[in-house]
């Protein structure tokens, strides 16, 4: 079995910062990412872009990316980590399956987008903001001709900017939260001027292109035969209930959605790290000490996978974990001080833009909740009424979460649904238990282990 001094899982800003900080101190690093190019979702297309960075964070992240290849870093892209046990990682890539033993591990697995279900959300043409942004940023393509953006949070604006750079026709941007809620959180802005400047860049682009930015509205229905043809927009009250009579049908072939991000915790769960439910960090997160070490010795987690806070936070956290591993503790307090306003800002965004409770009711009983197994909301609500009050129990009784995505998409939706149907705390619904392989791998790859 191959060995390494430090395995970094995820090559986004947090993973890059960790890998390069450790490698510059002479540590032998293996940097692993599932996508064929390093950079994570944040730096998609950044290697060949000519667009100026929108923030210091983007500039710094690109600089890190350009430090690859690095003599002390082995980069394994296109490589899935499908298992983690003690200090051994199970890997799969085009060469097949292999195992890697790492003295220390930093997980920087990032986050994923939350999309709330509503009638028609499984139609082709309905996709996440990230999916549309990747097509535009990395491939210079547009997802469609008449595009609508809906959801909540700053990613709406970031995605709009990427799409407009490819001359997209954006009909409108629908932000579900109300401005009155924004004011209540204004104090967290202090000390986050780089983020504010970034917001200003986005606002300017939207204004220059005369894109309507509609606040307190969302999409409640999508319709079409084989592909999206039209959507229904509605005004929302402050709890998120559509206001009767406010519905408006809009012709569109593309609907991009995102209700903020949630952390990818499958690896830390599989490694049996302790987790806690913290809505200010985006939901379930691994607990960490001041050096970002989890409850498992020599296993660290940084960036969105430990709590949604943006790339600026991930860059600092990656450095802190790598400095702790290389015993350069005297550099850490300064970084921890810089982290504080970012954490405050991240918590503000997570609370402010976490989906309004009544939005779960948009999914009528006929709406599919589990996209893989095609389990409808009605069946799941019935199972909850029949006593299934945890994700595991719902999985047993309805097949939800048993498909290819292994509950990554439906899991967070079920957490909210159980909480609202039983009037209980979301954390009491528990989590799906991830099991290896964390994502499907072909049997043929398992049958012949690769011996380098």
């Amino acid at each position, binding site marked *: 079995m191959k060995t390494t001094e430090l395995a970094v899982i995820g090559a986004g800003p947090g993973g890059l910062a960790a890998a390069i900080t450790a490698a510059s101190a002479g540590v032998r690093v293996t940097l692993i990412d599932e996508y*064929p190019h390093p950079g994570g979702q944040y730096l998609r297309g950044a290697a060949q872009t000519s667009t100026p960075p929108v923030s210091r964070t983007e500039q710094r992240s690109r600089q890190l990316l350009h430090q690859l290849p690095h003599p002390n870093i082995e980069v394994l892209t296109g490589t899935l980590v499908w298992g983690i046990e003690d200090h051994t990682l199970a890997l799969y890539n085009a060469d097949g399956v292999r195992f890697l033993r790492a003295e220390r591990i930093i997980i920087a697995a990032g986050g994923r987008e939350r999309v709330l279900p509503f009638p028609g959300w*499984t139609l082709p*043409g309905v*996709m996440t903001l990230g999916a549309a942004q990747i*097509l535009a940023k990395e*491939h210079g393509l547009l997802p469609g001709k008449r595009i609508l953006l809906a959801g909540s949070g700053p990613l709406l604006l970031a995605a709009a900017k990427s799409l407009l750079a490819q001359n997209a026709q954006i009909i409108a941007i629908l932000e579900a939260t109300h401005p009155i809620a924004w004011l209540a959180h204004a104090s967290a802005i202090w000390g986050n001027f780089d983020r504010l400047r970034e917001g200003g860049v986005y606002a300017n682009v939207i204004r220059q292109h005369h894109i309507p930015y509609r606040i307190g509205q969302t999409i409640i229905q999508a319709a079409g035969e*084989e592909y999206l043809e039209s959507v229904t927009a509605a005004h929302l009250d402050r709890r998120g209930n559509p206001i009767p009579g406010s519905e408006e049908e809009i012709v569109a072939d593309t609907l991009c959605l995102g209700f903020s991000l949630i952390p990818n915790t499958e690896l830390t769960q599989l490694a049996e790290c302790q987790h806690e439910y913290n809505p200010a960090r985006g939901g379930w997160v691994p607990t960490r000490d001041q050096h970002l070490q989890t409850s498992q010795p020599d296993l660290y987690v940084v960036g969105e996978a430990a709590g949604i806070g943006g790339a600026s936070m991930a860059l600092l956290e990656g450095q802190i974990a790598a400095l702790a591993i290389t015993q350069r503790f005297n550099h850490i307090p300064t970084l921890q001080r810089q982290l504080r306003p970012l954490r405050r800002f991240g918590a503000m965004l997570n609370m402010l833009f976490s989906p309004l409770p009544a939005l779960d009711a948009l999914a009528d009983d006929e709406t599919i909740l589990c996209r893989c197994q095609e389990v409808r909301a009605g069946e799941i609500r019935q199972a909850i009424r029949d006593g299934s009050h945890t994700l595991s129990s719902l999985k047993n009784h309805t097949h939800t979460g048993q498909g*290819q995505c292994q509950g990554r*998409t439906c899991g967070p939706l079920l957490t909210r649904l159980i909480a609202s149907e039983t009037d209980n705390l979301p954390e009491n619904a528990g989590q799906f238990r991830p099991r290896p392989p964390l994502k499907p791998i072909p049997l043929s790859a398992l049958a012949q282990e690769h011996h380098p």
Partner: protein
Amino acid sequence: MILESIEINGQSVLVPAGQSVAAALFAAGISIFRHTHEENAPRSIFCGMGTCFDCLVTIDGIPNQRACMTLVHSGMKIRTTANEND
């Protein structure tokens, strides 16, 4: 820009090197990638980053490959199941 020749549902197309299969399909005007087992419902790109497994296609004979996480290579043969159902 370097172009590579691939085959989508039996038709030869030229695509930029380094493009994802999902992007290549969209660029070729194919935006329905498959139909589901249970309800024969159409699916396409959804999350775009390897999480949701909606964008599954057959690549070089191996089924259930994520179009969003696979890059094209010269001579690649892609089949969407949308085509098989026609």
